[in-house]
């Protein structure tokens, strides 16, 4: 790794560090509060923490990281160009810093899951799950490791997708921003399903749904499909990001 990439990675990692710290303070506070409230209610039936439990930690982390990806382009790009970094060093540093953040947060989420499981067992009426287990089921140590890998790749992919989207909006003109920002969600979320329902009885959207079920291995409980899919998504998104970044210029 060249010195510049190391510096670029260090700066971009440091830029996210504080947000991550605040995020976990909030998450832990919410978890503790929910445990206290649940324990106070003293329900006799076993409580599965699907609302406040660890399954929401990894989903909450996924959403948080997508927002982080969306928010980290513009300021960093200007700062690093100002300080003599090439676009290549900026992107490589960005991907490496995202990898470090995704890895770190995967481990923290795993530790939080274990911690809340311990507390749940001590209290006696809690069971804590992860999204991976909800989708693919439980298993032995190898299965758990696969769950960690899937979570890491999911976190990395959403960071990269968020970053790519913010770069795309940075590169687009005013009209492009409106068309993509409003047009695409309206087309995909409203107009598309209505037209599909009218003309094909919803077959196309059903096919898309099936496609995602297959590539993430939901139906066959095959997390390796998800590992492959998330890896391909990360690579493709990184490539798209590079194509847009290599000719990006500074703006006031």
């Amino acid at each position, binding site marked *: 790794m060249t010195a510049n990439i190391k510096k670029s990675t260090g700066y971009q990692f440091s830029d996210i560090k504080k947000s991550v710290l605040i995020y976990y303070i909030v998450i832990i506070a919410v978890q503790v509060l929910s445990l206290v409230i649940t324990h106070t209610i003293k329900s006799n039936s076993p409580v599965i923490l699907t609302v406040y439990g660890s399954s929401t930690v990894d989903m909450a982390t996924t959403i948080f990281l997508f927002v982080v990806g969306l928010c980290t382009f513009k300021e960093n790009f200007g700062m690093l160009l*100002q300080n*003599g*970094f090439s676009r290549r060093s900026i992107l490589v540093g960005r991907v490496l810093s995202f990898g470090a953040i995704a890895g770190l947060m995967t481990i923290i989420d795993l530790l939080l899951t274990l911690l809340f499981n311990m507390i749940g067992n001590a209290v006696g009426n809690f069971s804590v799950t992860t999204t991976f287990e909800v989708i693919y089921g439980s298993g032995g140590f190898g299965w758990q490791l696969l769950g960690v890998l899937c979570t890491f790749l999911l976190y990395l992919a959403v960071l990269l997708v968020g970053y790519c989207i913010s770069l795309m909006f940075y590169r687009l003109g005013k009209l492009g921003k409106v068309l993509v920002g409003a047009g695409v969600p309206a087309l995909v979320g409203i107009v598309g399903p209505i037209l599909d329902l009218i003309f094909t009885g919803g077959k196309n959207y059903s096919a898309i749904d099936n496609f995602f079920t297959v590539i993430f291995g939901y139906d066959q409980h095959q997390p390796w499909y998800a590992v492959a899919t998330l890896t391909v998504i990360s690579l493709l998104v990184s490539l798209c990001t590079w194509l847009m970044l290599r000719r990006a210029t500074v703006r006031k």
Partner: protein
Amino acid sequence: MAIEIKGLTKHYGNVQALRGIDLTLEAGKIYGLLGRNGAGKTTMLNILTGRQFATAGSVTLDGAPIAENDESLRQIYMLSEATYYPESMKVREAFKWSAEFYPNFDDPYADELAGRFGLNVNSKVNALSTGYNTIFKLIIALACGARVLLLDEPVLGLDANHRDLFYKSLIECYAKTPCCVVISTHLVDEVSPLVEDVVIIHQGTILKSLPREELLTQGYTVTGAAAKVDAYITGKNVIGTDAIGGLKTACILGERGEGAEGLEFNGLDLQRLFIQLTND
């Protein structure tokens, strides 16, 4: 060490910002980059630092292309009107990161300059006034130890005292480490004593690129009654005239000829020459 600019051209749609610029910037010199608004100064400096891309032409540092070259880019620091430091970053943090990015960054000197200018290092960048924002960037430029300093409007928003302090600090820094300094400014008279070479850019082309002394000895001014001046300048290479009431001043390129009764002869000053050369 030299920056070589060859055939540098930049188009923004139908607008030609730079038209095939050829220029060499050498180490150990302070350049004054002068040009009217929209002449192409900032565009040229942005291309030199890889912030924008040229439509055609090349820019090299010691023979190596600058664009997307980390090694070359690291040796150049550009102070621009726009601030690219994060708004919520504190001045002290910006110094810390500058030290991380520039191996020769002189942290104690940065602190000393902050003290001289009265800059609070615990302020956030977005809390600084226009003048202090410029001072903040000036301090990093002077302390970073880069071999090339490109200063685009370095006195924006600075009061006379701070401008004077900046010029003194620049000379002090330059005496310590003679680097290549390019000052792009509209305050021609103020930077005139500082610069060794003058580059005048007009409508995207280089009009003049000469040592200041050589440029100023290329001509002279003659002042007197309008009729006498008109008679004197006939057949001479006049680059411009000013008239106030019955009094006229003409700027003439070439050797000063025989004196004429009732006329006053003076040397050219940089601002007058610049105005005459760039008047459309």
